[in-house]
């Protein structure tokens, strides 16, 4: 085997441009696979991180009657905040309607403790404002309703008895984040204001757990851990990974096709050389091994070459991030302005192993033909 590696190395180096063209294609494949995977991992991590920071915190304590996937449950899905609810940020959710520019837009009216620190929502703006009903909204909400900081907009809501009421709210801050569910169709006001507006004093729909929160049973409430809340994102990520896997397979197939093609051509063009190896005393199996190792060695060379330009590129991208076009954010896709790719060791090693094994297999396939070659015909270069 050592001899096969020695000879394969010499043959590949000696083949010059032919080798380096294959190596270039394969190394590009390596780098692109790792780049895309890294970007997806970065995007996924970012999505999880942002969702935790802006929405999930350390988990949610939900009122038993509230179902986050059923808007009708908002009517009854709230209750008195338990007395021993430590390290929990209460959120009361009610339905409302705003009338920007005379249009009617349904919104989720969310009351939150203005002094909370569990989520990154800039709720201190609610505390610091002198407006009668200060509100904060996200950039998407602001853009879709043409609302700016300082704008006043009419809000209509129903109190605990079902009576409609209306007042102007003032947009005191517009925050930017990547978590659409805290932005699109959401109006955040102080929970105390909402309590006053609805008469639901001391009530909440859900409570966001802080870092120090330790779960204990609360009657009428149930706890959903951060992990359980993230399970949907995890499912989306795994689906996304599976679909992006098709792209990697296509890329890999192109590179492997180049190796396969080179091997087929190589075996055809190097018949006399194969005959010479046999006449010098190599067994056919050794010659098959040599050609297989040659093919596999393309992937080793590609790995080295890929490292030379890939590592600096990955380090640079992981530091500076990849800017995403504004259009993709406007489409409502949870995308940050910049995605910071994550290149884990598992990703790199996994890709290397995959490419080396695949390259070895596609090299072996045409090389098997050598085992059936007539050495005399090979020496004459007469095989078709």
């Amino acid at each position, binding site marked *: 085997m050592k001899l096969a590696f020695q000879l394969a190395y010499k043959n590949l180096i000696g083949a010059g441009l032919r080798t380096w063209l294959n190596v270039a294609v394969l190394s590009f494949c390596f780098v692109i696979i790792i780049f895309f995977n890294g970007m997806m991992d970065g995007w996924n991590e970012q999505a999880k991180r942002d969702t935790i920071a802006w929405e999930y915190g350390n988990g949610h304590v939900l009122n038993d009657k509230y179902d986050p996937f059923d808007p009708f449950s908002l009517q009854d899905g709230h209750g008195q905040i338990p007395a021993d609810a430590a390290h929990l940020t209460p959120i009361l959710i009610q339905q409302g309607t705003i009338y920007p520019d005379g249009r009617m837009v349904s919104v989720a009216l969310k009351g939150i403790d203005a002094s909370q620190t569990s989520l990154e929502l800039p709720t201190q703006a609610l505390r610091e404002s002198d407006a009668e009903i200060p509100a904060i909204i996200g950039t998407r909400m602001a853009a879709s309703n043409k609302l700016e900081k300082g704008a006043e907009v009419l809000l209509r809501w129903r109190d605990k008895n079902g009576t409609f009421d209306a007042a102007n709210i003032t947009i005191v801050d517009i925050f930017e984040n990547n978590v659409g569910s805290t932005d699109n169709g959401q109006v955040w006001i102080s929970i105390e204001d909402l309590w006053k507006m609805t008469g639901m004093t001391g009530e909440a729909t859900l409570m966001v757990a802080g870092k120090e929160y330790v779960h204990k049973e609360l009657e009428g409430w149930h706890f959903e851990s951060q992990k359980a809340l993230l399970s949907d994102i995890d499912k989306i990520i795994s689906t996304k990974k599976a679909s992006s896997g098709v792209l990697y397979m296509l890329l890999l197939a192109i590179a492997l096709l180049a190796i396969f093609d080179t091997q087929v051509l190589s075996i055809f063009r190097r018949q*006399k*050389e194969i005959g*010479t190896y046999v006449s010098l*005393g190599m067994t056919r199996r050794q010659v098959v091994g040599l050609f297989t190792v040659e093919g596999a060695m393309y992937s080793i060379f590609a790995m080295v070459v890929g490292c030379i330009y890939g590592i600096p590129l990955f380090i640079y991208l992981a530091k500076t991030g990849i800017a995403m076009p504004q259009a993709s954010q406007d489409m409502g896709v949870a995308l940050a302005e910049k995605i910071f790719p994550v290149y884990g060791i598992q990703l790199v090693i996994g890709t290397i192993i995959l490419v080396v094994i695949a390259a070895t297999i596609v090299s072996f396939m045409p090389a098997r033909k050598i085992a059936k070659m007539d050495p005399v015909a090979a020496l004459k270069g007469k095989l078709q």
Partner: protein
Amino acid sequence: MDTQPIISLSDVSKRFPVGDGEFTALKNINLSFQKAEFAGLVGPSGSGKTTLLNIIGSLDSPSEGKAVVMGKSISALSHRESALLRNHHIGFIFQIYNLLPVYTVFENVEFALLLQNRSADERKKAVMEALDWVGLSSMAHKRPDKLSGGEGQRVAIARAMVKRPAILLADEPTANLDAENAHIVLKMMKKLNKELDTTFLFSTHDEKVMKYLDRIVHLRDGKVEEDEIITTQQAAS
């Protein structure tokens, strides 16, 4: 003295499929060669010279009859056994040299020894000695494409001889050489034959080669037409 022939061919025939029929390249060949012979298979194209060399070199096997080389029946050898036979006991020289293009002269000559798993020191010593025999030690690091035809064939001789084979099979070794280089190469092979007791077996129709041979086997249409032993007087004349 060992009188057992190093090569023994009994009723060897070889047929190749051609279209729906067969072409008979060798018909009932009976020959034997002793150690250190300097012999040639001579005949026109298609007479079966190369086919016979290939059978002796265990690159091919007879359709009928028995070919025994170094005491081993060629037909009975597995791929691995015939590879071992070639690697240890048989050297080949081809008309177009068949040097490995990406290797240097040194590496080309070293190749057979690499297959024998010899140590680096042993290989280096043997390769330089073989290159000395053919007068090319100064070209050890050149690539084959930088050599003239004569030099290329001398490298091929060094490659074939470096493992000190018992038999050296040369298929039209001078066909691509000019007269001067052909004589240089033949003298060199004759010298190695005398010094190392290697059996040389040529396939040729080159008059220049025939002048050096001690035995000429004339082949025609796959049959032995004449087996001629050249006496010292004949050779001198």
